């Protein structure tokens, strides 16, 4: 759970952007305006998948100034646990769904003299909203966007048409790559760097910038992890006095929710820290997949993030 009320919404458009990506538009069921939001925000979409409740976070990509509706893009993940499959196969215009209030874990630093954005694949979506917002505010930005090929480079043409020279495009299959060291060296003082894309890309961008001496406060990244699949296990909730069975394709958080327990969360992707739980007992191995806990905490086996992390062993007791 999270304190804020959900937004009852209706899907008004489903657009096939390319063979892997679909775009969805939501408007409020009561016809009212959506809350304003800041570029980089996400919303959590609730899916009722034949009795199983799935909640996935997706970046908002529509113009934050447009309060008539929200748009997200979903990349189909054929090997995943089914949230994106559900969005692709089952969600049709006219469907009613609950979405969360916007939450921003990837905000713009408005003190920046310039915003340098680096996107890989579907990681483009938060930038689409950020660029629209900066354009309205008169902020200075530049986008470098890499995709596998022309077919999968969603929104490339629209963005170039809208922002012209400020958009730089790279296609892997055509042997184009961002010349990162040169790009980073040429930036004016006061530039902030933002990266969103696959893990490898984020690490590459951040480590290159750090090597060049960029201040930590000027580096921003966002990576939502999809909760990984794994083996089934059991967890005892010490405070609620309940034992929960976590299925192989279910996250611990989802299993806890299915047992009727209101557990805190925001991102459901191991990034925000909201779901952090103390571990009371663990006979076995804690499988940490988040990037919230520090290495010391992981080593001490003192905490776990139920939204993405799992367990392998005979007994796990957490404080919930």
């Amino acid at each position, binding site marked *: 759970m999270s304190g*804020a009320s959900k937004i009852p919404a209706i899907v008004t458009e489903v657009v096939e952007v390319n063979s892997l990506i679909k775009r969805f538009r939501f408007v409020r069921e009561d016809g009212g305006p959506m*809350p*304003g*939001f*800041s570029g980089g925000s996400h919303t959590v979409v609730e899916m009722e998948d034949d009795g199983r409740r799935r909640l996935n976070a997706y970046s908002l990509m529509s113009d934050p100034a447009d309060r008539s509706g929200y748009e997200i893009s979903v990349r189909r993940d054929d090997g995943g646990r089914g949230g994106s499959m559900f969005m692709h196969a089952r969600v049709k215009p006219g469907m009613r769904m609950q979405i969360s209030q916007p939450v921003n874990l990837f905000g713009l*630093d*408005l003190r920046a003299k310039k915003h340098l954005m680096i996107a890989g694949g579907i990681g483009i979506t938060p930038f689409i909203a950020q660029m629209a917002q900066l354009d309205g505010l008169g902020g200075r930005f530049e986008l470098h966007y890499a995709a596998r090929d022309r077919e999968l480079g969603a929104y490339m043409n629209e963005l170039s048409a809208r922002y012209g020279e400020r958009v730089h495009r790279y296609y892997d299959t055509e042997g184009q790559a961002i010349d990162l060291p040169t790009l980073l060296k040429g930036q004016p003082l006061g530039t902030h760097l933002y990266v969103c894309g696959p893990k490898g890309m984020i690490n590459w961008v951040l480590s290159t910038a750090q090597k060049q001496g960029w201040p930590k*406060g000027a580096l921003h990244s966002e990576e939502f992890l999809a909760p990984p699949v794994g083996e089934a296990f059991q967890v005892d909730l010490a405070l609620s006095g309940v034992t929960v069975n976590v299925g192989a394709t279910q996250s611990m958080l989802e299993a806890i929710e299915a047992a009727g327990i209101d557990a805190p969360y925001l991102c459901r992707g191991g990034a925000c820290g909201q779901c952090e739980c103390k571990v009371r007992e663990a006979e076995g191995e804690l499988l940490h997949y988040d990037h919230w806990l520090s290495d010391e905490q992981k080593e001490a086996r003192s905490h776990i993030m139920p939204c993405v992390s799992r367990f392998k062993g005979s007994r796990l007791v957490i404080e919930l």
Partner: protein
Amino acid sequence: MSLDDAFKDPFFRDESFFGKYTYKNSPAAIKRFPFPFPEDDYMYSVNMEPHVSGRPGSVFEHAFDVDEHYVSEMRDRARVLADDPLRCQSLPHMTLAGWDLLELIMESFARDYPQWFELHKDGNKWHWINRPLGIDDKFTFLDESTLPYGPMEYITRQAQGDFTLQDQREDNLWIEAGMVTSQADWSLDFDIGMSFHEWHAPVPLAGKMGVFDRALKFLLQLQHGAPVRRFNWTMTVDPLLDTSPENYHKWGPSKTTLSAENIGQRQHLRVELQTLFRLPRSNAIAFPIRCYLISFEDLVSQPKWARRLHRVIKNLPDELATYKGFIRNRPLMIEYLSQFDDGAPTSPGWWADE
């Protein structure tokens, strides 16, 4: 803009917060005073709760409380600002947060007090009417050049309480804009640019308990649409809103003039209703700090509050009484309040007994 028509609604009192101090609570305002002690013991805590609509008539019936002191308080703010313009500051990157705050307050006022405020929107062309203050302005949302002040200053000259705006970055909150004219002994000019822990550093005991680490973590995750609130309190001699460090030389000495004869009229309990809102476009956090003052004399008209305040003041650790600035007059307060405490049990919660 003119204040000439200000007092047409007799609901609003014409009173002063300085000089002759004609500030006073009506009987209805006493009944709805936010008495901050739910129990006979007081311990510093962060004690936040959802800022949802509360009891009809109470100070948290609405997101922002507009009460009988509104017009006079806004006049007092204008007076303080005329003396010291640095009471209102906003770093350049906080302008968007200022617009967020303006929108939040205008929408709330117009929805909750339609008899006094109106907001009409046609895209970004907005029309704002504030009857109690005699304001009728048309402007373009997000275009500063169409307002007489920056957006935060414009709207907080029309809203009771102090306001600060916190930017969020690097897993911290930075106080980078504010309108502060009725503060309990802290200074915007001194604190601007500080991080969360820096500006809380002076509270004794609390740092040790790790409450600020937990509070910061909680606030970083504050969600849009789910504001929270908490209370704070202190003591002020005379109903002076502006007890700022800049002006300590003006208000500090009044503490030495308190006596058994005048304490009932002059000693005031000062309660801050602090709320926190996540702002949508800027992702900043707005922190309205609303101040309520009640004289001891008025407060003891509610027997439950009289008994409880006596017990709280008597049992408060010395560090806290010192920090809150009333250690010197504590014996006088206890003596005065003890007349109204027969030792009877008090009912739970803070509401006055019916």
